């Protein structure tokens, strides 16, 4: 659908597609990118009036950052340099296939580490801290949360992300799909 907001059309988003972006992997397993995009300024002190014509350039190691890590993880993935300056956006992971997609997915998996909780064995609360014993897809885990209610992010009706005192995240994909005993334990914080 055509956007009615003319105001927003002033800005153009640089989308990376298999046509203008070739991802590869360095010998040490870091993702690299060759892209056909306007000349990238390495420093904002460089000359302002560089041409905006796209050229093929070797950008070296790149980093990924999800724009909507919680509710749209597979789409709108920013590709940046080390400092977080954006080269472009991947509109959808499904735009890519084969090797390129593998590289992106592997790197995303390495960047976002969120064990998925499948069962809650026990939750004890003491002085504002709660101590959790859970079963995750990666095995059993125990962690502590401070200010439990606040650190329980409700992404949607059924999806929850818990952040523990260290900054680890644990996801529950569907609280209603948990067994009854587990649900009873988390219900308190929903």
């Amino acid at each position, binding site marked *: 659908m055509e956007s009615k907001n003319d105001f927003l059309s002033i800005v153009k988003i640089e989308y990376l597609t298999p046509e203008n972006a070739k991802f590869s992997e360095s010998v040490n397993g870091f993702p690299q990118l060759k892209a056909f995009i306007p000349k990238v300024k390495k420093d904002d002190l460089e000359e302002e009036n560089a041409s905006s014509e796209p050229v093929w350039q070797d950008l070296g190691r790149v980093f990924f950052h999800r724009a909507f890590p919680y509710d749209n993880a597979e789409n709108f993935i920013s590709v940046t340099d080390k400092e977080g300056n954006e080269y472009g956006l991947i509109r959808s992971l499904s735009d890519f296939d084969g090797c390129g997609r593998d590289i992106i997915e592997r790197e995303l998996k*390495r960047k*976002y580490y969120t064990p998925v909780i499948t069962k809650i064995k026990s939750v004890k609360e003491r002085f504002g801290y709660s101590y959790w014993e859970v079963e995750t897809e990666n095995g059993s885990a125990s962690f502590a949360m401070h200010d439990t209610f606040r650190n329980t992010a409700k992404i949607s009706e059924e999806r929850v992300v818990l952040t*523990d005192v260290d900054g680890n995240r644990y996801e529950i994909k569907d609280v209603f799909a948990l067994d009854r005993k587990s649900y009873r334990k988390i219900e308190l914080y929903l």
Partner: protein
Amino acid sequence: MLPRLKIDRHFYDSARLGAEQALGCSPLFGFRFDLDRDNTPCAGFGAVSSGKVCVCCGGSVAVLEIARMEEIEYVQYIGCAAVEYTLDGDRFELCRSDMKNAVALQNAVKRLRSLHEGKDIGHIRENEDETACPVCGTPYRAGSKICPNCADRKKLLTRLFPVAKPHLVPLLVSLVLYFAGVGLSIYNGTINRTLVDDYLHTSTPKSDGFWTVIALMVGVALFSALLPMIRGIIFAKVGNRITVKLRQEVYQKVQAMSLSGISRRTAGEIITRVTSDTDVMREFLVSILPDVLRISLTFIGISIAMFIMNWKLTLMILIPVPLIILMFYSLRTFMNSIYHRQWHAEEAVNSLLHDVFSGIRVVKVFGTEKYENHRFDVASRRVRDISKKNEITWNKIMPFADFLLGIGEYAILFFVGSSIIAGTSTLGELTQFLVYVGLIYGPLRQAAFLPRRFARAMTSAAKVFELIDEEPDVANSENAVEREMTGNIHFDKVYFGYNNYEDVLKDITLDINKGEMVGIVGRSGVGKSTMINLVMRLYDVRSGSITVDGVDIRDYDQHCLRSQIGVVLQETYLFKGTIYSNIAYARPGCTPDDVIRAAKLANAHEFIMRQPDAYNTIVGERGQTLSGGERQRIAIARAILRDPKILILDEATASLDTKTEKLIQDALEKLISGRTTIAIAHRLSTLRNATKLVVLEKGQIEEMGRHEELIANKKRYYKLVMAQRQMSKLKN
């Protein structure tokens, strides 16, 4: 073996052994990590000697020479972190871990860098990097190394008693009153029996003493009424004192908390804790606890009296009691969770209200009143649903409990009745027993409500104590000094970040001499305000130090330090009160003469006198609205009155029109002279008088020098100046 997130210590021990063996000597320090390259859990250990680092993970061992490792860096991912380095021009990953070892990895990186540069890292204590209790795995609280699980075994209850301690005498008096009350009730049963057996239901009624019996009954009734009255008065007095005390304590705690501690919580939540949670705690001390006492005393006293009379019958009556207690005990956890949820829901409504009314202008401007109404509806409906559900659950349980309680009375009727028919008991005995049953089951009925009241009180107490227990992030050192400062500030290799992994300021070394005016320049988010927050010690530096006159600011008494620093911020907050009180806020006990002088210096006197109520004009919330420039000048007057040795201006003149800016600039110039000044400004013209300009970029000092020098350098500052000139040309 299945991968496990929770890795037993002995797996680490074997990794540690592997790493240390490969190292070939005893390590300077070690660190754990628990993920492999693809984020699969593993037990890993890194051991470091002065020349080598060795990592061992899942059977594979790598040994590296630290001297060859360039650019050793800590890389923060989401939910995990890694250490990377460059070897012969290629980038490698040393190890990775989830966040529980993040601090250890950060420290390891710092030390590895030092070793790489050939510096001595000093002695490192075993377990220094531990963030969790080695005994039980419970994480430490920020800034403390005491395990809340292992050391802090005091239960909430024992925490509450010290609160009641100063009121011991009145509380003891009321305890005596309770004893008297129980005695009276037992005596009442005996009188009843005498009345029935000797006077009413007998073939040979006594002729004398009937009046005495009636009089005794009246007397007992009178005392039974008087005792609770006296108790009530005592508790009202003690209770209110306790509430006030608790509130003061919580409030003072909030005031003493560091900025980061406060900003972690919403204002609504803090308000709830100061007001209603302390109230619930008072209720616990003066109502719930006495009730527990009264109920148990009555129960025990009457049980004994009944036992002496007829033990068989007493057992009959008491049979349902354990059942009821068992039932309520099993309900306790459940009720606890129910009230927790209600508390959270109510808190959500409070916080929503606070949020919306703080941003009411945005709501109005965007015309989103309907949306806000809807949001509030949803939140209050949630409270309604939850409390409805709670009440319903409660009402489902209670009638059943009532029925159970009733069984005892029927048992008495049956057994005593049959023995009366058989002629072995008297009607008087039945009456006495029925009185006792009433007395014993009455309290039990109330006892049924105790778990719920208890749960509510405990929830509140936990929240209040959590706040009171919180160690301030920024604490006074043990022998904090109070001294006059002259105003020589020195930043020495300062590193700081608001969180553990991201440094906002890196390696800041800067000298600011007495009387100097230093301007801090840079784009937003670069750490300018952070620098001044550190000078005011709203946060503590992570490493390095800031000294004033050669003394580390962490060794100053906080109050003493801040009392010698004056601040003018971009957003000026005026408290509700008069202009006078807002200016005088800076120095309690100053004279009107001082205030007027300060206002004159700040170019504020004139506009203040144009107000109908002059210095008595009410400002702040619901007061007279002043323009941005006027508020700014009041803030400057406030700062002037304080007569600070160090003056901090954070965008003090931004967003003002040129004429007002000129006025304020003039006012500031008077204030600046002879004082150490640190000024932040986007508008570079504001800083034309600065003796030194510091250009920050990415948390580091990129350039430093006088205006002319930096212009001649033709680097970032030059670009900024040129860009702004172009902008102002466009404007004109």
